[in-house]
């Protein structure tokens, strides 16, 4: 095994081999217990870091005002967040004022403008062809930072990953607005069966997993496989092979316990004919067959009977019923309930949530498989659980989540635009892309992974830190030297603290409170504090209104730049990445 002789030689601290117990960041679900762990952070911190993208100034106070104790505050917050009537007009106003041109286009308009370019505006070429995806990304960023419906935005992100399509794709980008606006967002708190059919019929998914060209007896299995493996039953319910008779039934039921390859092929046959109006040469040569919208094309449908999960599907059923029968079987199946509730618990709680909670959530899921508020009910159940309230630090913040938190906590003023040339948002999103978590860019249908070990790697952390080091240096497009910043931490520091109060320790603690809402280990704080104060005592006021060379007295050397860098460093601690 490798030896760390080099590290020891150049004097870097060797890795601690002692076990650290009793820190506020320990999860109650840690593997070993030597002494009872101390109480975790408050419900406010848990809720705002796991049901939301982190606290904006004032969010913690508002949360704590919702009740007399953590249990009632959380319950009230969950209800507030699940309420579809929660006023979000300020955020919507920002989106309206963003000047986006594609977000309200119908499917037919998106197709006409960005695929066919019927008005000869060049909109089917780069970069305009990609604007529906690029503007969806801008709206996503605005909502992550400003929406009051944080749980809704987090849940929409969950479903986008669950039903992942590669938004930044030549064929899908022009259509992507429909996927976000009409398929995922309307159903995110609603009914899964309804969302599933909307996904299956969406041109984005029909393109992504090739079902638009699946026909006859030589079907394309791509979508059908992911339907079973990713979207519903999950690979844990997969029995590789082609003989469905080797799979047992669910106890007491006549439906198979899981799916095999043959079921995938049968589902693919059921889905033949689900295509889109893309002027295919076999379609009638009229304009209504060239709108980009969903089309069920009976000529391409395999009408023979199917045998799916031990359910016999008759031949010659009415249009689209074969696939709908498949969806019904999958959506009622306990395997689907467990698979999805397991994912929801992992998203909101930790990577190893209690099986009892997954089971109770799955039972509720299954019971309400036809209810319009199915997902709302299940979220309410999960978020009010003991496991939710008592777990901390079992997840790692993914780079997108980290960026959103940084912008929220530092009062960012952003106006993201998909300019074709360089602009600060392009720079920022490029850095996010290098961290491996840029929205709508995951290329395979499984979506961004949601396990801590996938986001704790060297590359992820290094590239996220790089992004943070740059975030606080970005100004709005066209802003001159000496002007404002997107996340203007200097201006906010000077507004919040009187000049005599602007010591390094007060400034650092001010930002720790804004970012963490609780203290962080002294060892981390000291690094940032020592960096900010340089040769000044920690309690001596710094001159934060100037930014100039001062090599002989480093406490005055580019102090504003140093302050921005210090805030950036506060986003590079282990504690920041736990949620």
């Amino acid at each position, binding site marked *: 095994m490798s030896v760390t002789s080099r590290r020891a030689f150049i004097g*870097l601290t060797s890795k601690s081999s002692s076990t650290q117990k009793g820190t506020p960041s320990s999860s109650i679900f840690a593997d070993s217990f030597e002494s009872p762990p101390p109480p975790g952070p408050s419900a406010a911190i848990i809720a705002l870091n796991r049901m939301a993208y982190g606290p904006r100034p004032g969010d913690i106070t508002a949360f704590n005002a919702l009740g007399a104790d953590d249990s009632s505050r959380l319950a009230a917050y969950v209800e507030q967040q699940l309420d579809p009537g929660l006023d979000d007009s300020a955020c919507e106003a920002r989106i309206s004022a963003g000047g986006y041109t594609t977000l309200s286009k119908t499917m037919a308009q998106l197709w006409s403008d960005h695929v066919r370019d019927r008005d000869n505006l060049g909109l089917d070429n780069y970069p305009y062809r990609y604007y529906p995806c690029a503007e969806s990304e801008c709206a996503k960023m605005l909502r992550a930072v400003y929406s009051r419906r944080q749980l809704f935005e987090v849940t929409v992100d969950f479903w986008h990953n669950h039903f992942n399509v590669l938004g930044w794709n030549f064929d899908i980008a022009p259509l992507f607005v429909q996927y976000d606006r009409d398929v995922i967002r309307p159903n995110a708190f609603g009914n899964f069966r309804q969302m599933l059919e909307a996904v299956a019929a969406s041109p984005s998914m029909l393109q992504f997993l090739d079902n638009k060209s699946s026909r006859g007896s030589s079907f394309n299995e791509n979508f059908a496989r992911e339907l079973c493996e990713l979207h519903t039953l999950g690979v844990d319910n997969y029995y590789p092979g082609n003989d469905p008779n080797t799979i047992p039934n669910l106890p007491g039921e006549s439906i198979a316990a899981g799916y095999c390859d043959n079921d995938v092929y049968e589902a693919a046959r059921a889905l033949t004919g689900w295509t889109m109006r893309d002027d295919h040469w076999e379609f009638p040569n009229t304009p209504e067959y060239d709108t980009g919208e969903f089309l069920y094309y009976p000529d391409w449908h395999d009408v023979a009977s199917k045998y799916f999960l031990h359910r016999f599907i008759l031949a010659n059923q009415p249009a689209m019923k074969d696939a709908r029968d498949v969806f019904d079987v999958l959506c009622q199946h306990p395997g689907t309930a467990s698979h999805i509730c397991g994912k929801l618990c992992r998203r909101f709680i930790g990577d190893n949530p209690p099986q009892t909670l997954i089971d109770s959530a799955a039972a509720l899921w299954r019971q309400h498989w036809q209810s319009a508020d199915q997902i709302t009910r299940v979220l309410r159940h999960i978020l009010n659980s003991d496991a939710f309230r008592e777990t901390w630090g079992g997840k790692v913040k993914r780079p997108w989540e980290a960026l959103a938190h940084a912008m929220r906590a530092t009062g960012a003023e952003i106006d993201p635009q998909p300019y074709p040339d360089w602009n600060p948002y392009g720079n920022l999103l490029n850095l996010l892309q290098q961290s491996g978590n840029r929205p709508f860019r995951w290329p395979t249908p499984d979506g961004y992974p949601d396990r801590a070990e996938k986001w704790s790697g060297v590359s992820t952390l290094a590239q996220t*830190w*790089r992004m943070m080091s740059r975030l606080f240096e970005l100004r709005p497009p066209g802003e001159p030297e000496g002007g404002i910043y997107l996340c203007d931490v200097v201006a906010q520091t000077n507004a919040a603290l009187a000049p005599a109060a602007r010591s390094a320790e007060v400034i650092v603690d001010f930002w720790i409170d804004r970012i963490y809402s609780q203290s962080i280990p002294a060892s981390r704080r000291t690094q940032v504090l020592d960096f900010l104060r340089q040769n000044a005592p920690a309690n001596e006021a710094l001159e934060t209104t100037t930014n100039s060379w001062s090599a002989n007295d480093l406490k005055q050397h580019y102090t504003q730049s140093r302050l921005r860098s210090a805030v950036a460093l506060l986003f590079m601690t282990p504690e920041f990445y736990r949620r």
Partner: protein
Amino acid sequence: MTSPRFPVSRRNFLKGCCAAAVASSVPALGWIDPAKAAGSGVQHDVLVYLFLRGGIDGLHLVVPYAGADRTAYEAKRNDLVIPTSRLRRIGSSNWGWHPRAGGAAGDAIGVPNQWLSRLYDQGRVAIIQGAGMSSTVTRSHFDAQAFIEFGTPGNKSGAQGWISRYLANDFDMPSPMLSNAFGFGSTLQTSLYGNSDVISIASGEDFRLDGFHWSWDDTDTGINGHYGAHLRVLPMWQGASALEQSGHAAADALEFMREIDFGLQSGSNTDGYLPGGGAVYPTSGNGVTLGNQLRNIAQLVKLDMGLTVAAVDYGFWDTHESQGMPDPGNPNHYDAFGNLTEGLARALDAFYIDLHAAGLMDRVTVVIQSEFGRRFRPNDSGGTDHGYGNVMLALGNQVNGGFHGSFPGLDDLSLFEGQDVAVTTDFRQIIAEALVKRQGVSGGAIGNIFPGFSYSAGGSGVFKTG
């Protein structure tokens, strides 16, 4: 060159090593054990594990050219049958390369073979047919990749990838300047799980902490007491949790790699990296990222910092639709699979030329595999669906070029479940052979790396010994 076994400061090491390694044309790996270098034992090489993500259609890369397999191919592969006139025949075998393995779209058959095809002609490429998981069938990308990368077909609940277990069973590795194991990509490969020393990077050039304002970004040695902000990160990542250890490794790696210029040498970047032998890594097409990552690996190998194993990926092989038909000689034809193939071929070729010029391809071996092959009969979308058996490839001067394994056949009775190429060689046999013959792992230790697998020492003869 100073051997990293002896204590040396990082800066001095890199100053001394970079220039020497780049300029040298003699294998200058400081961690060669002289006794072994003399041929008295097993050499210790660098292993590059390249995973083709998505399930490459091996039958479209190494294509039946003659004989019974060609007959079955022409009968059943429908619209994806590549005419023999469009294939680059592999020697005088019954197989041919997809033409883009040896030429660009506009290069007709008859234009001399380039890239992967040329390397095969030089005896540097091994093709193993009918490879895959012999004990487990799955057509799920997720499961197949997990089984293969954990090294435990049928079981994906482990905590360690096979490379991590290899590292724990290789007692002869050099003492590294940073890590023995690198994963190239923005998320860590499963094969490297469970090893807290592994360094994952997506690109050498982007791997630095350099976004701070210039006044505090870099330590200014001309200002007394001035230290760059980045130096504050490593001390904040102390602790025993997995996250803290990973962050510590990240901060450590950032400090180390900050000193290395991973950009290409040019007029405006004279400190940059100059590939050897005139190697040109792809700057356009599908192979750019892979080429950059292989170039970074080559640079790290030449820096002689103890890199022993690198994992790298090349994806988008999941060609369910519009796989494309090659038309060599026609520069503008649609061929999605061909574009991917050309990217692979050019990136590997540049890597080979670059390291071979430094004599280092005697010490570097590339093993290439995918999670499964694709179905023999195509679908109606111009593509293919998930299959089973596939090709594996190996590249290097210590590879016995040619065909290995036994192709199971394409007649109805030989197809697995009547639809896929069967598996006759377990992928673990090939990797294990590389570990034993090139990495110095004892045959008896293979059972620790691939639990439940019996390594056949007689082997498949893919790799040279010693």
